[in-house]
């Protein structure tokens, strides 16, 4: 019998119908497990009446919040798979998802004009000011997909500009949350502050909280004072947030404390030591850094030594194993993992889990570089994949270069990361002008990029160069230090 995460939630709701499932974001707003179950079942009935059926893949283009949670679980209750379409992406990026993944319909905010070109029939209104729009499917569905019992397909652009999707089945997500909870120990006594994008973070967070009977606290905004007020009002026991949120809480000028907090979980990006220290000085709690990746889940959390081993994502949780591939003289190598809940498949080109793992002797090659210290604590020092992380929002360099190289005045582009105090990293571009074309200024290029890319992917600066820096073998040099000192090649 196949597992369904909606059923897991319904079982929790049957156990504790009066227990609060969600608190906030408005004052006094809350919904119990029982009421949320009823709401999900009403939405599911609406969706089934609108023609939804098991096996369909539905795009979810909707802001995070209680309604997002209810819609996701309603889709699962119908037997459908969910492909999140992040609201903050540029129109072109959203359309790319539909070109690469077979999506039968989309649930969107009331304005469905973005999807009108591929619509089949009129939009069907749903609760939550949402609408369901059936779509002409633009590509063939992989035949093996249905056999996986898929819950999520997370679209990611690929290293070579080729798109791919990460497929997570209900069973895989359930295995992940069980493995993560060996460390987090979340239960019905927990009240968890939520501040992140639900389009990117849902599987080993929202699903875990609702599967283990915890209460999710939604904040009205992410100012330090607001987070602290919510934490105190609802007696939060756990915060799951990005480094910036911890920085904002640390700098709050009120005298609010975090008296009920047992875990301050840091995700999405590296936590600067000064933020960790400021948070510790202000609240007496050392933030717990984590290692979370879409292909694996949450294999490591620095639970037992967040202060003593600051900068480490901790030891691996009990169910996971790690090895380092080809470590250098400093012991730094590519992090390879194995354990429960590894991705079921890549969507395009189709690669089942067994095929992915067989390439590396049963290990999942993460693309991240790290080392393990003498006490078995894992430290992440960089990425072997060509990616940039701006305030925890990650993207492949090649997708920005591809957009730049489509501009008529640009012959070639090389994008690389520079360190940024607040954002972690930020992109800069070297661009080679096309022959007989007047190079546009930065403002014009940024506006052009803004038409094709989400804002955080747009390079901060453009340097016009005669040619891109390459190694002797012709490979592009992306070493930031080298690129920033190659002044002689600049031509404008």
């Amino acid at each position, binding site marked *: 019998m196949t597992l369904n995460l909606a059923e897991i939630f319904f079982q929790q709701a049957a156990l504790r119908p009066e227990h609060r499932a969600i608190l906030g*974001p408005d004052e006094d707003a809350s919904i119990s497990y029982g009421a949320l179950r009823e709401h999900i079942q009403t939405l599911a009935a609406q969706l089934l009446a609108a023609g939804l059926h098991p096996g369909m893949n539905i795009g979810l283009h909707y*802001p*995070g*919040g209680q309604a997002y949670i209810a819609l996701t679980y309603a889709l699962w209750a119908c037997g459908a798979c969910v492909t999140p379409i992040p609201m*903050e992406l540029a129109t072109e990026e959203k359309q790319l998802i539909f070109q690469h993944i077979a999506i039968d319909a989309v649930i969107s*905010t009331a*304005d469905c004009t973005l999807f009108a070109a591929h619509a089949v029939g009129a939009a069907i209104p749903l609760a939550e000011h949402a609408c369901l729009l059936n779509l002409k499917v633009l590509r063939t569905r992989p035949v093996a997909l249905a056999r996986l019992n898929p819950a999520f397909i997370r679209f990611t652009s690929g290293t070579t500009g080729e798109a791919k999707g990460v497929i997570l089945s209900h069973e895989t997500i359930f295995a992940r949350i069980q493995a993560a909870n060996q460390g987090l120990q979340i239960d019905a006594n927990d009240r968890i502050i939520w*501040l*992140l*994008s639900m389009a990117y973070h849902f599987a080993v967070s929202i699903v875990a909280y609702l599967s283990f009977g915890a209460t999710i606290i939604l*904040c*009205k*905004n*992410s*100012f*330090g*004072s*607001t987070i602290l007020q919510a934490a105190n009002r609802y007696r939060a026991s756990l915060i799951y947030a*990005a480094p*910036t949120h911890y920085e*904002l809480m640390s*700098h709050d*000028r009120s005298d609010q404390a975090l008296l009920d907090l047992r875990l301050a979980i840091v995700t999405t990006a590296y936590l600067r030591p000064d933020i960790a220290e400021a948070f510790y000085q202000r609240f007496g709690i050392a933030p717990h850094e984590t290692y979370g990746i879409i292909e694996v889940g949450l294999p490591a959390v620095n639970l037992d030594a967040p202060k003593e081993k600051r900068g480490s994502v901790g030891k691996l949780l009990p169910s996971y194993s790690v090895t380092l591939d080809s470590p250098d003289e400093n012991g730094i190598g590519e992090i390879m993992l194995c354990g429960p809940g590894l991705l079921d498949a890549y969507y395009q080109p189709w690669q089942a889990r067994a095929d992915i793992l067989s390439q590396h002797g049963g290990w999942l090659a993460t693309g991240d570089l790290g080392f393990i210290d003498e006490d078995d604590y894992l430290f992440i020092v960089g990425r072997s994949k060509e990616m940039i992380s*701006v*305030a925890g*929002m990650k993207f492949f360099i090649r997708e920005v270069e591809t957009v730049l190289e489509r501009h008529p005045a640009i012959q070639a582009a090389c994008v690389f990361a520079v360190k*940024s105090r*607040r*954002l972690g990293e*930020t992109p800069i571009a070297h661009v080679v002008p096309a022959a007989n074309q007047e190079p546009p200024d930065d403002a014009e290029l*940024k506006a052009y990029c803004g038409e094709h890319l989400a*804002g*955080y992917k*747009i390079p*901060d600066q453009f340097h016009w160069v005669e040619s891109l820096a390459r190694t002797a073998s012709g490979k592009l040099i992306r070493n930031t230090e080298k690129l920033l000192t190659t002044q002689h090649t600049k031509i404008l």
Partner: protein
Amino acid sequence: MNLPQQLREHIINHYIKDKAPDGFNDDDNLIDQGLLDSLAIMNLIVWLEKQAAIEFDEGDIVLENFSSVKALLDFVRRKCAVSSDD
């Protein structure tokens, strides 16, 4: 287009369009009306740092500076004035 104009256009296009009630103006509260939620604020900070080269100091990211379009424009003008004095 100067920075305050760019910022106003960015806020309206990305956070207000389709969501704001009729008659919305620059003094209306973005937070109370739920137009700038936690994710929108982070995206707006990224935009201001990357596209407008605004450098946030400790204590800049507070509710008062983000409460309305007018408050944000005033904040950006203050930051630009300080950096041009440096």
